[in-house]
């Protein structure tokens, strides 16, 4: 693996994503939604800061989720369908470099977009005289960035063997299921037995636990930051998950044969 080549590949991802204008559209959408939220006047009481912060953070999470998956699942299938993968691999670039470079590029673009979403939200919260606590905000961004790294790694992994549509769909379904179902599994298994219980427990330990990276409620309700030991443990867990999916992506792609004219 060569760090310089990985960075060059990441730079290519940046150029392509900025040219597609996905980030600008999402940022404009977020700003539009926030403007609408600022005009909410429930029961004639005026604007409510916590409601705006909570909804704004939810929107920021949804948009960054969409951006991460769409960007990551598009990279490798597009190279294959356009035939540029032959040019790419003709250069002194290993397949591991390509996987890492694509991942780093999509992750960094998504993180920068997410930071800009948070910045817009922080400005609006400040205007409402209910700013986010800085230590909690930094921790929340750190964990959110780690989550995005996991999402992009999963997207890259699926895209090594599937076309763009299938990879994106599977990534959406998997991440949504992990997000919504896993935290409730300890409650669901109370009323299940046999295969159902085994299946739930298998999913519980096989899928990544995204709820560990969600500090939105601490941000909204001005709770204190989490302990550094807990933060370190979650970041370590995230790093292991990222490495796992990137290794799977490399293993899936390293001996793949390409067919000219394959559909995206």
């Amino acid at each position, binding site marked *: 693996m060569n760090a310089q080549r990985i960075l060059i590949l990441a730079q290519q991802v940046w150029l392509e994503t900025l040219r597609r204008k996905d980030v600008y559209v999402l940022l404009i959408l977020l700003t539009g939604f926030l403007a609408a939220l600022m005009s909410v006047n429930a029961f004639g009481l005026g604007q409510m800061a916590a409601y705006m912060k909570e909804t704004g953070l939810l929107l920021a999470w949804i948009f960054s989720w969409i951006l991460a998956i769409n960007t990551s699942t598009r990279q490798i299938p597009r190279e294959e369908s356009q035939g540029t993968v032959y040019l790419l691999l003709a250069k002194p670039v290993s397949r591991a470099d390509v996987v890492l470079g694509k991942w780093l590029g999509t992750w960094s673009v998504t993180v920068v977009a997410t930071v800009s979403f948070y910045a817009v939200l922080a400005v609006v919260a400040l205007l409402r005289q209910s700013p986010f606590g800085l230590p909690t905000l930094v921790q929340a961004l750190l964990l959110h960035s780690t989550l995005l790294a996991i999402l992009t790694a999963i997207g890259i992994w699926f895209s090594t063997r599937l076309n763009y549509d299938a990879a994106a769909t599977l990534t959406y379904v998997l991440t949504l299921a992990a997000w919504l179902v896993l935290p409730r599994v300890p409650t669901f298994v109370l009323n299940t037995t046999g295969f159902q219980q085994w299946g739930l427990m298998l999913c519980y330990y096989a899928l990544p636990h995204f709820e560990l990276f969600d500090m939105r*409620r601490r941000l*909204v309700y001005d709770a204190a930051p989490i302990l550094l030991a807990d933060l370190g443990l979650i970041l370590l867990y995230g790093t292991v998950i990222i490495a796992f999916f990137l290794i799977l992506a490399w293993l899936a792609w390293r001996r793949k044969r390409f067919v000219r004219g394959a559909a995206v």
Partner: protein
Amino acid sequence: MNRPLFIGFAAALALGLASFSIACRLVECAPAATEETDSFFAKMLGDSRAAFSALFFESADRTFHKGVGRYEPKKFLDGFGRLAQRVTPEAHEHLAGATLRDIMPWLSIAIKTDPHNVTAYLVASFWLSTSLNRPDLALQALETGRRANPKDYRLYLEKGRIFLKLFDFPHAITMIDSALTLWHQRPKMDAEEAYIDWAELMTYRGILHEIDHHPEPAIACYQAVVDRFPTREGLKNRISEMTSQGSATSKPMDMLKPLLLSHQHVCDREEDAHDKAGSGDQHRDHTLIPERP
């Protein structure tokens, strides 16, 4: 400007003016919007709006408890569960004072999603009239609820309570009499809770009769309550005092105030041992709905 371009602009302008004129004419013919026909959510969601309304009500509840969800029993609590608990807020705290405004958007959306969610109106009006000190807005919210649910006695009961707190006795009488009439057409609800509401209505009505110097109807109201709930010793004593002496020892207002104050949130009652703090788990088992002791 060349000829085809000029013709194109002229045609576009003419069509724009024509469509604007037709739209103005159509707006005049449009049927008057009603609560039902105008509801976007009613059209989009259909019967599932009750479920969505409940979801938004739950969001209001969680906001009230500063991000802590309701207690859910778990079969196990492993490392992931313990770590997740340390990430999400877990302290048993509530919004208070002016910050209670933050639950209102969720209650407002719950109401707009399902105008027949009477609980949402009642909860909104409770917090508006108490901690937020806006009885005017509470009455407006209840009036909106009453228009959508004209036969639900609970909305009239809540309006009656607010008028009593404001010492607006004529309006209180109107609301309580309406509530009593509609109580017999009450929606499907817990029978015990319905009778407790009825007892509260009859007690208020009795107090209002006393304030108007009509002891006999007041005694009749109190007696009806005692017949249904024989353990109401306070009312029994009052009836015997009014029967033997012509009036009770304490003034009717002295009986009214504690009755109105008894309607409060469970966490505001110091003697209520609802808090399972110290269990190391998310322990909240109550909601933001006010309750009686």
